[in-house]
């Protein structure tokens, strides 16, 4: 089974990801936290990343958080991409309803 390297350029973390495994799952298995973990089902958009280099396959993702034009540019959800080569990724800002706002309201 092929094993690929994933490097997060934002945080400097790197980890291996097995063929058929999602980038997010590979990260969680190494107990890293360099990408936020949400629903793990392509639904909530919490684990959005930018793939800078490399090839991958996609599972189903919410069109709201990963519209086709964004996916085209490598803006995808880490829980739903499966590397075909080594990848270089970076973090992207969280979606509109950011935790900061909510926290302020509830403090």
């Amino acid at each position: 089974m092929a094993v690929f390297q994933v490097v997060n350029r934002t945080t400097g973390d790197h980890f291996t990801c097995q063929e058929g495994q999602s980038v997010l799952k590979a990260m969680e298995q190494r107990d890293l936290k360099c990408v936020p973990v949400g629903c793990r089902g392509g639904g909530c958009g919490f684990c959005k990343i930018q793939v800078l280099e490399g090839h991958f396959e996609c599972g189903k993702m919410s069109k709201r958080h990963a519209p086709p034009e964004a996916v085209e540019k490598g803006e995808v959800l880490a829980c739903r991409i499966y590397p075909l080569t080594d990848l270089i990724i970076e973090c992207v800002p969280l979606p509109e309803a950011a935790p900061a706002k909510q926290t302020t309201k509830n403090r």
Partner: protein
Amino acid sequence: MKKGVMRPGHVQIRVLDMDEAVKHYTDLLGMIETDRDDQGRVYLKAWTEVDKFSLVLREADEPGCDFMGFKVVDEAALNQLEKDLVDYGVGVEQIPAEELKDCGRRVRFTVPSGHAFELYADKKYTGKWGVSSVNPEAWPRGLQGMKAVRFDHCLFYGPELAAVYDIFVNVLGFHLAEQVLDPEGTRVAQFLTVSMKEHDVAFIHHEEKGKFHHASFYLDTWEAVLRAADLISMTDTSIDIGPTRHGLTHGQTIYFFDPSGNRNEVFCGGDYFYPDHKPVTWKTEELGKAIFYHDRVLNERFMTVLT
């Protein structure tokens, strides 16, 4: 139930992949598939529910909740509630009978938090699944997974909680069972009930409209919640948090996600409510304990991960 609204009757949830979703809600949660329609929607129920379905799955390119429906006691109550909504200035949409199979006409409206609700009076009565109405056994054999007892409630995130409160309490006859107040006394969470359950629907303040936090299914016992947790691991299902207890409602709970990222809860126990009960209040200073009674801190996911 003073205005005739009886209980949560159904929820329609959007899923990215129908086959995966059906497998999740049947094999893992233990619901029973009861029908499909020509839109491709799948209908499910939990075993103690007397009507034909309580969960409708619709394949879509974005997960989330389409609407939650409440069953009312009869057509007269439905007519009155419809009139009361309109008089109150809430726009209603008529959904004809059979738009959902074996369900009567539905009155749909959207509250200021951005969530769609429905009222209906009729749905095909199929009785409890797997037990007779004469000399019924204690429980049906052949249930799968968590053996969910019933669809219980939903929690929604959105703005305008005060306006939502007014509609549910003043127009629909719900009661405020529990609330979270911020230091200024603003209600940032409201747990509403229409009967003895501690919540039939709940809202937490959130800037963005129309977000879905979770659909919740009732289990019998804490033992069943532990077994649910075991099954979540056995099936490598995405876990959120639990098993633990809530401060709010004091229910015993575990959260996890369906394959499209919609959050599910299974829970047991918790407080009960009568119309003369004063609301229980949690302060935001204790929000961690209010949500997760044992850890007493929030996990970030609970407040931010939504569909």
